[in-house]
């Protein structure tokens, strides 16, 4: 049976094939946007059937619909932004013909991760995302990007190998039940009949294996390199969508284990890794001068917040779902801004960028407001999600965790805000002739749109989204949930 889910995977792959064989930059731009629009339309069609039939290969539940929605919207923004990006690349003679095919295959693979309902299949698609994104990281073909792609492939391939052990162990855990295979729904339904020992070990392997891909410290080492070397529209997708896909892969295992007695153990692991990621990010983020690396470390922080939210359980799971959406939007728009800066200044080093408001007025404002949205100040959506996580800490009586969390997040906020203010508005006295650069509309529109969405989410969450997030959180609540 060919469901919409299956078509969602195939269409980007077909477009990728087309783009790969024709290699013409004008059609490439159209292909990208058309594919993004089709993807978003089909995603919207799926919104009505968020309860998968049991035992299907591809299907959507509320949880995966949240991530599919994020992916689809972000990809559209990347596609629109790429219109001008591809033109710039073409004019400067550095256009890499593999950019569009790789981006589309990347989309297909990520969609595959999200809509698969089989642990083995999820693993295959995660592998595919690694291969597709490697091409994107090697886009500029410099020594640095070569180093970044080598580290990325190597570290992630080890992570994926460990995740494969998780798949094998999960098979062993379900051995006593006939014909259950690796189907997520069946595994959840029979969670209590699974062998608890094997299930726990499988979960640990999945957490470490996919955690590598997700960027949880201490397995994050590839992340700043890869994010800083990929072209900005692609690194925006890495932060906004790829990390979420890996997160979803972990959540699939979590969904199973949370229905058993081992749920508390899994939550503790999430909490420890999450807080460690936030801590690590706070150590590094202030002193880094490469702005995209700074944003990458901020991604590690937010991944940590997501893990913390899951680890706290209860209402924080809802908050984590909301945070996944808000962080993706905010981080995506910040990376696109970084792309504008890079295009104008030919550098991304913070020390060389001052007072961007003179030459790039729109981008400067976007960076300023975007940073505020990213850091979770009111009235943006990130504020709500972070606040709800803090609230859950109070409800659970984790006062020490709360103080540590607030301190670390404040340190990170300081580092990012300072950089943003300096880049956007702090001008040197002897600022040389500042020409106002032409900012193409398509390189600004996605960011303003996302800021608008973040503002909406901060002021009012529509009913359907609220229900969606509740249903998604309910899937992760399990039996030990508060």
């Amino acid at each position, binding site marked *: 049976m060919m469901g919409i889910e299956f078509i969602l995977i195939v269409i980007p792959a077909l477009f990728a094939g087309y783009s790969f064989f024709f290699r013409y930059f004008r059609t490439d731009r159209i292909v990208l946007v058309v594919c993004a629009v089709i993807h978003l339309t089909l995603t919207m069609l799926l919104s009505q059937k968020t309860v998968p039939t049991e035992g299907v290969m591809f299907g959507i539940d509320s949880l995966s619909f949240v991530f599919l929605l994020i992916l689809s919207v972000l990809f559209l923004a990347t596609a629109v932004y790429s219109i001008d990006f591809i033109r710039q690349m073409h004019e400067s003679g550095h256009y890499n013909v593999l950019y569009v095919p790789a981006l589309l295959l990347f989309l297909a693979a990520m969609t595959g991760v999200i809509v698969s309902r089989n642990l083995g299949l999820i693993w295959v698609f995660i592998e595919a995302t690694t291969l597709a994104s490697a091409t994107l990281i090697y886009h500029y073909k410099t020594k640095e990007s*070569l*180093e*970044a792609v*080598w580290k990325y492939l190597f570290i992630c391939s080890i992570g994926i190998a460990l995740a*494969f052990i998780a798949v094998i162990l999960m098979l062993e855990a379900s*051995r006593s039940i006939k014909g259950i295979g690796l189907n997520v729904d069946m595994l959840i339904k029979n969670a209590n009949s699974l062998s608890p020992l*094997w299930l726990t070990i499988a979960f640990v392997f999945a957490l470490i294996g996919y955690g590598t891909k997700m960027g949880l410290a201490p397995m994050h080492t590839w992340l*700043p390199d890869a994010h800083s070397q990929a072209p900005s529209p692609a690194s925006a997708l890495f932060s906004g969508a790829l990390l979420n896909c890996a997160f979803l892969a972990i959540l699939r295992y979590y969904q199973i284990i949370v229905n058993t007695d081992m749920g508390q153990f899994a939550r503790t692991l999430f909490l420890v890794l999450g807080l460690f990621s936030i801590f690590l990010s706070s150590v590094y983020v202030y002193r880094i001068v490469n702005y995209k690396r700074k944003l990458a470390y901020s991604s590690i922080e937010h991944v940590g917040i997501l893990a913390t939210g899951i680890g706290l359980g209860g209402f924080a799971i809802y908050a984590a779902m909301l945070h996944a959406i808000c962080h993706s939007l905010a981080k995506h728009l910040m990376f696109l801004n970084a792309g504008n800066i890079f295009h104008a200044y030919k550098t991304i080093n913070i020390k060389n960028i001052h007072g961007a408001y003179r030459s790039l007025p729109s981008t400067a404002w976007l960076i300023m407001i975007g940073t505020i949205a990213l850091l979770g100040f009111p009235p943006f959506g990130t504020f709500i999600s972070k606040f709800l996580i803090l609230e859950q800490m109070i409800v659970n009586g984790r006062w020490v965790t709360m103080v540590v969390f607030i301190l670390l997040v404040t340190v990170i906020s300081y580092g990012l805000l300072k950089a943003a203010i300096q880049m956007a508005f702090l001008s040197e006295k002897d600022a040389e002739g500042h020409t106002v650069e032409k900012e193409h509309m398509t390189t600004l529109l996605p960011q303003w749109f996302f800021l608008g969405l973040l503002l909406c989410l901060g002021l009012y969450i529509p009913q359907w989204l609220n229900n969606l997030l509740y249903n998604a959180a309910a899937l992760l609540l399990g039996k030990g949930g508060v």
Partner: protein
Amino acid sequence: MLLNDVAVVIFGASLTYILGTSRLGAYVKILSVQGVLLFFSAISHAETLGFFHSVFIAFETLIVKATIIPLFIFFIIKDLGINREVEAYIDNFISVIVAILIVIGSFTVAAIMKNVGQDSNIDVLTMGVSISAVIIGLFIMISRKKLITHVMGYLVLENGIFLLSLALATDVPIIVEMGVLLDVFIGLFLMGIFINRIQSTFDSADISELTRLTD
């Protein structure tokens, strides 16, 4: 299951040997031998695998793991003129000690899992050796300097996972095939190409060259 046991024991011995030797050529030969050993381990499961899967896995082990990949690595070493020395950060003697400790630890873990899990399906020998292979693969990656040895460390890890899947998942043969083939094929090819480029972009295929991007 005598065939399986003998193959697995020799596989385990090859793991300690690989950490004791300092010649790159010996690494490649061991990888080839491990491929053949995996084949013997696999055909001892032929009844549960069925004909087609058996043929496929035989192809995978004998042709891919034991022939193509080692030949390709030999080709890369020769073509790029890589120094025949392994160049470890750690002395060989200590490496062997570490290998022995890893094997002992893995067998202990395997035995504990069999007892705690009350799982009669577990074969402590295969399980122990495969866990050792995974850890020793990781150890090779962190303790050796050359990029090509990292790839070989990854292959040892892969072989360990293959053995593990043979021990645990032979009743779902698609899993056995799915994982390793995709990983080895694409991973190695990509890495091989990248090593080629690294060789020409950097001055040597040495991990200490990969230090431009730091914080």
